[in-house]
């Protein structure tokens, strides 16, 4: 149950994060982003359920790193709140929530963001009409995709690594 819950939360956030900018280039952006969040949430339910059912240690590891991510996100949110006029406590809480989702799959989302940034930079350099928004699009989409792959990888390796004290899917040993 815990894996399902964490997977759903993280997957929905990744789905939303990856579709925010692409959907803002359609005539139905709100529904498009909601669909992205729903699809991500559904995938997260499946992956989180598999991990939770086979390897509680891996799940606990993801919960712990989600907590770290939430703290980092919250700290960024509180910092931005004092700089960006329109930001309030709700924005800090939302940033903590997004940070928690990213934190539950830290390695995959970081690698994905890096690959997305490189792709975005190439697109920006090659296509005259591309710009900073395309760079951000690829970076966010890459991070979201990497995060989901991290969950999928965790699901595929959970049984094999059960009992070996593996906290993260990408061979980051926590204890």
């Amino acid at each position: 149950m815990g894996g399902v819950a964490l997977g759903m939360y993280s997957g929905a956030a990744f789905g939303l994060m990856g579709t925010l900018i692409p959907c803002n280039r359609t005539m139905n952006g709100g529904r498009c982003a909601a669909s992205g969040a729903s699809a991500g949430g559904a995938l997260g339910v499946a992956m989180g359920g598999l991990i939770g059912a086979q390897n509680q240690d891996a799940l606990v590891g993801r919960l712990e790193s989600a907590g770290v991510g939430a703290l980092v996100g919250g700290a960024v949110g509180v910092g931005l709140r004092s700089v960006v006029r329109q930001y309030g406590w709700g924005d800090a809480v939302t940033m903590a929530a997004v940070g928690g989702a990213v934190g539950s799959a830290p390695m995959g989302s970081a690698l994905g963001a890096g690959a997305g940034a490189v792709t975005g930079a190439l697109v920006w350099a090659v296509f005259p009409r591309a710009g900073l928004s395309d760079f951000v699009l690829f970076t966010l989409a890459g991070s979201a995709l990497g995060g989901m792959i991290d969950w999928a990888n965790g699901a595929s390796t959970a049984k094999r690594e059960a009992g070996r004290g593996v906290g993260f899917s990408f061979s980051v040993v926590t204890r």
Partner: protein
Amino acid sequence: MRSRGGVAGVVLLLAVLSACAMPWEMDRARPLSGYCPQEIVARQGPVDTTALRWYRVNDDRDLRLGDAWCGTVGDPEVRLTPSGTFPPWAGAGAVRVVTWNVNVGGGDLEAFLAREMGLSCGPGSSARLSASEPFVLLLQEVWRYDEEMPAVERDDHVPRTFGAGGGGSDAEDIIDIAERCGLALVYVPSARNGPDTGARPHEDKGNAILSTLPLSAPIAFELPFEAGRKVAVGATTRAPGGQRVRFVSAHLDVASTFVRTVFSGNQTRARQARALIDGVDEAERDGPVTNVVVVGGDFNTWAGNESALLYLRRAFPDSPRWEGLNTRGSFPTDHMFFRRGSFSMFDVTDYGRIEERHGSDHHGRDLRLTFQPPVEGPPGFR
């Protein structure tokens, strides 16, 4: 304990789905006292074409925040008749229509008028237009200083101070320039330009229309409130054949709050663009009918195919094609849109970017709105 993540996921999904419920439809509104349009009113038949007409979104959050911000600014300024002597829009002539974000005093508006529009300004009615065409200038982030505005302190309804203007006693605001250049003016402030600290005069900022042509039917479209109050400004002039042509100067938000960005699916500007389209349509329904519309502004778009622009291109199907040039750094923020309804005698040509920024952080854009009178057939020709 373990179900908390699931609850958060469900909340996230529901919140995103609720984006579809964020309203953008505009209603007519009117002030109950002062100049802020507090009351939403039903359509009331024929409208006064000389007084400022308001449209806004009937949403509790938008109304509450819009009212709070409106309470800090000064009166709108409407001067429908130019005091200078300028060439009329006559015969098979064109009007030059320009949109420019002045960057709150950062841009040198008088230099812009002189070099881009051919208008030399001077005291009294000595302004001279060297160009043969009349013009309509759609401006964003213009500012005004007026010590009669209420003094405001730093709070959530007062954005931070922007721009270089206003600091010096000899700095000219939009009212001064309209007077010195003899131009018709519709100016509706959106927000204060920073709290009053004593270092600068009391200032507000917003969108405006300056014109060498007489204007009528001034309209303020208070857009959905995202990060700050944005009021688009509309006004009408008459073509040589008597047809009404409406011009609208708009400015959309650059970013909303993080919460709204996430939970609306990043629909900040799309919502404001849809409201603007609906407001113009609502104004048409309230009359007088003005099928020919030119909209220009700073839409703060990150990409040339952003939702807001897609909605506007669909609503203004005769718009000139964007040539792909950015107008603020690497962002294609400024655009112009056009529709003519059944009035095929109107067209737009020469749409492009103005290269010189004249101190602003934005390039301007311009086009020519042409009018070709219908050819009359010989007597008896049907």
